[in-house]
């Protein structure tokens, strides 16, 4: 059996984009021979029916899973998703991407390929040679560059794009990180996680991406996110000394109670179906 690569896809009001994105993602399976592609949508009970869109697709895509929960921010959604993906699917790779169509699924095969060649963290990067950012306004460019430089400085990283949400991570590396102590809200989760991954010995590769135009809906980057981000950068700076070289708790050490879990029954029926076809 092929190892699993699971995409953790947090959503909030992305119904229209999911309709396009999910078929596009699963179409990429044809280019990925080394891994079985799964998608775990972590939906924070979107009022626009994102959850229903996923439900409707589940008959078409057997490896599409959904997990629902209360809205507690992007970081929390990632944490929940990653934790459950690892626990229930035992994937070799965990991938993260945005659901708003700004990350092109055509890159998935290249990122997974790079993981097979010994990299443990592959980043779809907006700021290396060959990359393109199409959609940002001047203000967003400034914000993104400033944020990036701050994280790079605070974490002592040599990575060009520290805030990209398009990543492929080997699970064994992910398991050395302490997810519980990462920022819960907003976008700073991504950079905080990145720092831990690098401190814990990630072999990093950045692949240039074309960062596209948002499909439908509005960006959810808020002022509060930006404020929290600054706080987190400070934290990264101080944690850096504490974490360096230390072995940290495995991700699965704690479990939150309120998560509505949809994937277990579906998984079982899938594996049964697999056996029949073989």
């Amino acid at each position, binding site marked *: 059996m092929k190892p699993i690569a699971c995409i953790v896809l947090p959503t909030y009001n992305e119904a*229209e984009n999911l309709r*396009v*994105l*999910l*078929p*596009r*993602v699963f*179409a*990429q399976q044809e*280019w990925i021979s080394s891994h079985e592609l799964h998608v775990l949508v972590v939906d924070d009970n979107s009022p626009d029916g994102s959850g229903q869109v996923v439900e409707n697709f589940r008959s078409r895509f057997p490896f599409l899973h959904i997990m629902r929960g209360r809205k507690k921010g992007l970081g929390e959604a990632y944490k929940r998703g990653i934790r459950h993906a690892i626990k229930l699917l035992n994937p070799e790779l965990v991938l993260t991407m945005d659901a708003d*169509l700004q990350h*092109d*699924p*055509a890159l998935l*095969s290249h990122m997974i390929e790079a993981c097979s060649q010994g990299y443990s963290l592959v980043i779809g990067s907006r700021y290396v040679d060959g990359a*393109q950012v*199409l959609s940002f306004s001047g203000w967003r460019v400034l914000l993104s560059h400033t944020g990036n430089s701050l994280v790079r400085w605070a974490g002592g990283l040599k990575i060009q794009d520290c805030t990209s949400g398009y990543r492929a991570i080997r699970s064994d590396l992910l398991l050395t990180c302490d997810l519980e102590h990462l920022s819960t809200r907003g976008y700073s989760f991504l950079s905080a996680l990145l720092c831990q991954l690098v401190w814990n010995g990630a072999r990093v590769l950045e692949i240039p991406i*074309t960062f*596209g135009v948002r499909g*439908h809906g509005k960006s959810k980057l808020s002022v509060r996110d930006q404020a929290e981000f600054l706080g987190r950068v400070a934290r990264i700076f101080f944690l850096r000394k504490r974490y360096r070289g230390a072995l940290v708790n495995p991700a699965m050490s704690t479990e939150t109670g309120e998560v509505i879990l949809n994937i277990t029954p579906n998984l079982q029926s899938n594996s049964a179906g697999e056996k029949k076809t073989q």
Partner: protein
Amino acid sequence: MKRALITGISGQDGSYLAEYLLQLDYQVFGIVRREPGTMRWLEGIRDRVELLYGDLRDTQSLEVAFYKAWPDELYNLAGQVFVPTSWECPAETLDINTGGLARLLLIVERRKSDTRVYQASSSEMYGNVDGFCRENTRFQPTSPYGISKVAAHKLAESYRARGIYAVGGILFNHESPRRGPEMVTRKITRAAAGWAAGDKTKLKLGNLEARRDWGFAGDYVKAMHAMLQQPTCKDYVVGTGESHSVAEFATLVLAELRERFHGRFTNAKLEDFVELDPRLLRTGEIHDLRADPTLARTELNWKPKVDFPALVRLMVEADLAANGILTPSSLSLGAS
């Protein structure tokens, strides 16, 4: 700045579309074949578009062109477009018209899956239909050309189900001074330039009673662009909603000459200039094609600006000018 890649940029539609996209501030790339074709229509914009070599039958060349252009929008306008030729080389027609799109879609899905793809579908896909053709009218193609276009249209539809923004624009006949000389409208207006110069040979035509929905290509390329700007992608029928016969077209051409050369064509009858050549009759002739462009009108907010008589005038004028024939009316325009 958005980037557009156009296959068949040197053709009628490609050149009009390139001009339109440049107006909209696009960066325009075009694929042309290596063998010398006409670049006449690109003369005005030659320094503002980047031409790349490629052939719809050659996957590698398309891939290289795609990489260089890295397009947000891809317009597949190249093709083997002449229906009679499609009977002489049906396999090649399928390879270019259907296989070409298949190669492009594969590259898109593999390399940049958010590229929006426009496929030039055709009214020839319908075959003989009673009444108006709509988006959901059944396709019953009667020629290898029509079949190749139906297959490509369905291919675009199947990629749409895989999340690719791929649109089949079902454009009815659209003409212009840049129309290929083998096409019946251009054949007539070119002959008209000869008649004006005193040539007495009769023009040989096939079925004079075939009716088509004719519009101006410059209008139609705007619909192509609009189709790729919609929130959800679907197919659209583009046409004027009225059909005219080949004979009507030729009659209007004569009327145009009559108006320009006072006295000379007063008693001209169609039979004096045109004769029927049974060898030019088509197998699988489609007798009447008429579009119902309601969806394009309501959703794309698209309306043709040039009507049938204006289209004829435009084409006759251009062919006269291309042959260096000045008419009294153009002389008076020049003087004023």
